[in-house]
């Protein structure tokens, strides 16, 4: 083989190799992009599913909140007392014994404001939701 032909053959081989490398990089890049795209899609779907779940739980919580509020109504509790035949009534003034340090009714008076826990101010719901009563009380109407 003449040197010129040999040099040409080498050049062709080099070009071919370069093309093959380019093709491999392109194909693997495309596949990589595809994989990335799919991962994004899967993550997005998972996020969406979680969003739906959160919305569902929030909805459920709100429903439970209103249900708890319902069974905390003084009128409802009075009806429960009647239904269960309990002879309960509020204490009379003479039946109450006041102890020193007993927190006074919550008012805005500055001298009394220290008697109240700050948590109540922070999270009013904590004081309105009592899950323990949910099982023991079922609505009668």
């Amino acid at each position, binding site marked *: 083989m003449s040197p010129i032909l040999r040099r040409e053959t080498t050049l062709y081989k080099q070009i071919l190799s370069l093309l093959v490398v380019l093709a491999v990089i392109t194909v693997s890049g495309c596949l990589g992009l595809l994989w990335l795209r799919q991962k994004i899609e899967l993550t*997005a779907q998972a996020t969406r599913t979680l969003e739906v779940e959160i919305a569902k739980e929030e909805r459920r919580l709100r429903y439970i909140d209103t249900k708890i509020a319902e069974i905390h109504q*003084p009128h409802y509790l009075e009806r429960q007392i009647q239904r269960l035949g309990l002879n309960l009534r509020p204490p009379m003034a003479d039946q109450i014994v006041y102890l020193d340090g007993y927190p006074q009714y919550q008012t805005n008076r500055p001298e009394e404001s220290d008697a109240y826990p700050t948590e109540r101010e922070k999270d009013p719901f904590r004081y309105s939701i009592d899950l323990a009563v949910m099982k023991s009380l079922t609505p009668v109407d």
Partner: protein
Amino acid sequence: MSKVCIRKTRFHVCSAILVAGFLMLCGRLFFLQVIQAESISAEVDTVRKRLVRIEAKRGDILDRNGNLLAGTRSQILLGADPQMVDLTKRDQLAMLAGVIDMPFTDLMEKLGRRERIDSSGTTRQVRWVPVKEINEDLYQSVQGLKVQGVYGNRRYDRYYPGHELGSHVIGYINKEQTPVMGVEHALDYYLKGQVGWRETEVDGRRREMAAFREREVTPRNGLHVELTMDLFVQSVIDSAMEKLVEETNPAGASIIVSDPTTGEVLGMANYPTFDPNSFWDFPIENQRNRALTDQYEPGSTFKIVPISAALEEGIIDPETIINCGEEWKNFNGVRIHMPSDHRNLGEISVRKVVTKSSNRGAAQIGMMLGEKRMYEYARAFGFGRSVGWPLMGEISGTLMPVDKWDGLTISRLPTGYAVGATPMQVHLAMSTIANDGVRLRPKILRRVINPEDENQLALEPGKGDRVISKETARLMQEMLVSVVSIEGTASRAELTGYAVAGKTGTSRKIIDGQYSTTNHFGSFSGFFPANKPRVVITVVVDDANVSGPAYGGLVAAPTFKRIGENLIPHLAIRKPQNWEPLLVSND
């Protein structure tokens, strides 16, 4: 022809086809990407892109202890596709009817409606029949039955767990989701929050392709509003109102309970009332907050104004003798016929004028005070002007300026006639006495709470105004205690062991332009313990159906007592230190 020639031709033909193919492809691409690019991308945007509105959750309304007064909850409109429902599965459908508490025949009738005729007369298939509105629990049970073709559409509704409890204050949201009255309306800005939105794409089945979400603005949920109301106090008021209505069957009534030292309204009820959960079932006039929108002539409860004023001005003292036997009196050169008392009381002290609620005595004190000062004090006590109610609908009442008074006004105004007042104005006048002479604006809104970052916004109504001195107020408190005694007009308001101060009022209603002799407003406004007032309670009863005149001491005072008895343990109102309970001795 040589083989080489044939190959060349084939080569040229193939090349030409390929080039032509590429050219066509390029042409098509040019057509789609350049010429029709705008319309196609618009079509894609229409079909695939969605601007989704993300609703903000409305804030809750809470009482002073965090109890829920108004919240939002989901409701499900249960419906069915009659084409999908298998009517032969009668057992399953019977169970469905049982779960949703609907007669089986009614359910079958709804599900059996498979066709309808539209406006053009064409018969069409029915694909959706609403069955019943149910809650989440029931919907879960319905889903458990797995009835084919039955499904629910969820929506959010405002819910008021207390039903009628405090409905005039809380207000409601109508079917169009518009806040109509009360706190719902006044604080809508805080409660409603801010809606968000999201730009996203959907597939051919309209399912969101979450990966193609472009821009998103998250919603801001509404803030919670805390009121000064107390659920328990409100419930006590409502029970007392029920009893009052049962006993006297009035045309209307209002009850207000507040803390005189802060102006905080602990509860307020009106009759007739309404349930905000089903407001459409009640006449529109039931929605009126009568305590603030209706005026009446307060009668004797107004006497605290001229007597306080005269004491403040040093014109009288509690022991000053007033001649209540005089039928005629000269005032500014005019001979005035004095209002009558139920019997001739003769010469009595100012203290007795209060105890016996003498009209003639009050009129004389008013005359001693003079027109100008009488008017100024009435204004200072809050009559004839806004009380500063933070929710809408309040009226100012009627108090004519002196230049529009007729000759008799100076003798009638001190007795609570010739003045139109709302129950709240009367209540605040009494609160001024209870608060040692300082008049406060009523406070119903306590604070706005952001549940996410615990930030709070206090809603303060502003400072009060001093109307009378502390000494005068204390004198009035002392004199008003005698009203709630066996000698006074409100013995039915007595609370054992507590000194109760208050004033009854009975005024004739104006019917067809004339004072009626059979229709009255009976009222009582008072506070206790008299030496350190914790609550002021006002009860106004419009046209109570009782035998004889509906005196305030007869129709309103017992309601005061009923409420007071229940508030003592709840508010931990201690008996005065010097009071000792009656103990049975073994000696």
